[in-house]
């Protein structure tokens, strides 16, 4: 009886061990694009909600009958991780994916993006020059820009009226200065607004670089992106301004980017600086009477707006090169494709023809003149973010600096600390 049981027991284990090896030997269920009859299946990776991407894909598949596109959605915060872990290690899927402008140098350097130089001449004539520049690294085109961006100043009409503040004009020539906005924000607060001013992408470089640039501080980097350059009067001025907003109670601490729009839709803040992609949601919010004005600038400085958005790239290890390149080309260089793209998300497109369609859409959800304002800003005041391999490190270090300043550290101390940390971090970045 011993032996029977013992053998039975051991057999169970042999079986289990065998299972491991069999399972490892059999493939998984992930099929690759079966191209038996010329039909190709592409995997497209992005951070947009599937509901907004499906119409784009359907439109593509209608005119490209032999290609199917499968969309994989990863959370926005993890898109770089995913690309690193998959494409960075040689995986053949996804075939096509989204790439944030400032991350393109690092992606290119790590061979995560395939060069698309053949498309460069044609691209130049149909896409925004900013986007092309951002998608280029060391002279080669690594992705095609699909979207652009800018920012405007939203204001709550009721809160301003309560303080008897004249609504700002939407004309870029009559742009308000940050100093004036601060003053009016305070006035609105004394008349009952909970907060005076707040930002969409609070404490992010994207949002605050324009302040430093407008104050003459430059992007905060020199030497081809290897040396931090934050210790100058321009950055000092911009950061002191930012510090005072929070320390004097004009703006709230502790509210993250994801809870920022709620502040404006909840009528808790008089002025809110943010992207035009919020227009549909704001216009649908019951009881929110809002206006649009140009992004402010510092007195004596030049007007600067944030810019830059998403490009679309191809996996260098893809098995379906032609189809993948065609998909990316259609998404960006084809006006139909690019229009389908912005219909989903209401970000300004990078395709010049699609932009016109965009301005027409803007007119439906925004105060009159907004389309012209966006057009003006994209064409005249956008300053792109630095294009360096160490972008993520730089972004993280500056975010920490902005948050420290927001939470009370003096601009001087925070800038010095960030400068030191950046020197160490950027030194570890391969060039």
């Amino acid at each position, binding site marked *: 009886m011993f032996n029977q049981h013992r053998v039975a027991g051991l057999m169970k284990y042999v079986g289990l061990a065998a299972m491991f090896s069999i399972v490892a030997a059999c493939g998984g269920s*992930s099929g690759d694009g079966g191209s038996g009859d010329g039909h190709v299946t592409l995997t497209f990776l992005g*951070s947009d909600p599937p509901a907004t991407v499906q119409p784009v894909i359907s439109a593509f598949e209608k005119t490209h009958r032999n290609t199917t596109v499968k969309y994989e959605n990863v*959370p926005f915060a*993890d898109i770089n991780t995913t690309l690193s872990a998959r494409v960075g*290690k040689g995986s053949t899927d996804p075939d096509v994916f989204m790439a944030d402008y400032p991350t393109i140098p690092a992606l290119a350097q790590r061979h995560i993006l395939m060069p698309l130089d053949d498309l460069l001449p044609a691209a130049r004539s149909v896409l925004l020059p900013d986007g092309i520049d951002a998608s280029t690294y060391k002279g080669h085109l690594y992705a095609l820009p699909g979207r652009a961006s800018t920012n405007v100043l939203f204001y709550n009409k009721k809160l301003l009226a309560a303080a008897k503040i004249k609504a700002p004009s939407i004309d870029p020539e009559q742009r308000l200065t940050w100093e004036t906005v601060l003053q009016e924000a305070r006035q609105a607060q004394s008349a009952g607004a909970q907060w005076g001013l707040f930002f969409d992408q609070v404490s992010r470089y994207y949002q605050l670089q324009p302040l430093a640039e407008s104050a003459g501080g430059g992007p905060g980097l020199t030497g081809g992106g290897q040396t931090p350059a934050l210790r100058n009067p321009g950055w000092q001025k911009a950061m002191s301004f930012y510090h005072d907003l929070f320390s004097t109670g004009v703006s709230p601490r502790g509210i993250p980017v994801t809870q920022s729009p*709620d502040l404006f839709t909840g009528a808790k803040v008089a002025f809110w600086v943010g992207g035009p992609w919020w227009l549909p949601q704001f216009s649908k919010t019951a009881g929110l009477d809002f206006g649009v004005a140009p992004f402010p600038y510092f007195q004596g400085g030049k007007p600067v707006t944030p810019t830059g958005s998403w490009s679309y790239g191809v996996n260098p290890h893809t098995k379906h090169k032609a189809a993948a390149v065609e998909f990316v080309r259609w998404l960006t260089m084809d006006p139909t494709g690019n229009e389908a793209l912005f219909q989903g998300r209401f970000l300004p497109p990078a395709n010049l023809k699609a932009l016109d369609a965009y301005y027409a859409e803007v007119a439906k959800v925004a105060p009159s003149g907004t389309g012209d304002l966006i057009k003006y800003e994209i064409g005249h005041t956008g300053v792109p973010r630095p294009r360096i391999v160490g972008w993520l490190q730089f972004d993280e270090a500056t975010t920490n600096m902005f948050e420290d300043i927001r939470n009370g550290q003096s601009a001087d101390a925070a800038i010095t600390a960030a400068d030191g940390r950046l020197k160490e971090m950027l030194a570890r970045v391969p060039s």
Partner: protein
Amino acid sequence: MDTNAFDQWTVRTRRFLLLPLAVVIAAFFALPLFWMTISAVRPHSEIFAHLSPLHIGFYVPDRPTAHNVTAVLSGDFLRSMINSLVTAVGTVVIGIAVSVPAAFALSAFRFRGRQVLFIVIVTSFLVPFEAIALPLADNVRQAGMENTYWALILPAIGNGQAIFLLRQFFLAVPVELREAARVDGASWWTILWRIYVPLSWPAVISAGLILFHFQWQAYLWPLLVSTSPDMELAPVTLARFLGQFDFDYGQLFAGSLIATIIPALVMLRFQRYFTTSLATSGVKG
């Protein structure tokens, strides 16, 4: 001290001192979840409208809506929940089948290298999973196993923590019982499943909890190996509600509620194994 007075005193203490204390403590743990539940049935615009100052509107929604719950159930979340359940249950079943015998070996037998093996097992769960996830994900890709349940379940099987827990509890099973069984001619397999396990139900359930918890909380691993829409797991789907340009807290909370209720109900169901039974006297000690 006379026993009757002692008994009465403890009963009264229980009722008037300990019960309110238990309620307060349970409330501390449950209140934020209660707020989340309320928020899940509010329209998004109202979620942040009533945070402060403290007033009844905080806990009572003026316009309750089922929209968040219905939206979350009609989207990808339902499928992800099912994936999460299948993965978690599979992990528990296989994990228990693997860990229980291993813990038994470590506690009922004596052999050279037993202590070393124990140290190795404990060290294995000290290593952060995130540190080994990248090379492991590579292996999975090379084996072509991405987007499969196996890829999700297998790494969770090697769980030194479950083995550790079971071993601690198995060590408390008296030697006499085992020896009596051996004298009667029982095989080790019988001893394990007919004596050790029934005496250690709370431990086995807890080991199951460890395995379940590991899978339920897993985020990085599913992100690395199974992002295909039909193989996504719940935590990743939930994370998508806080995207780049839309922050849907309503659906996020509704989905989280569903993801929380399931383990809670299972725990509630298993509570009867955790009570000290008066009948255990004489069985274990």
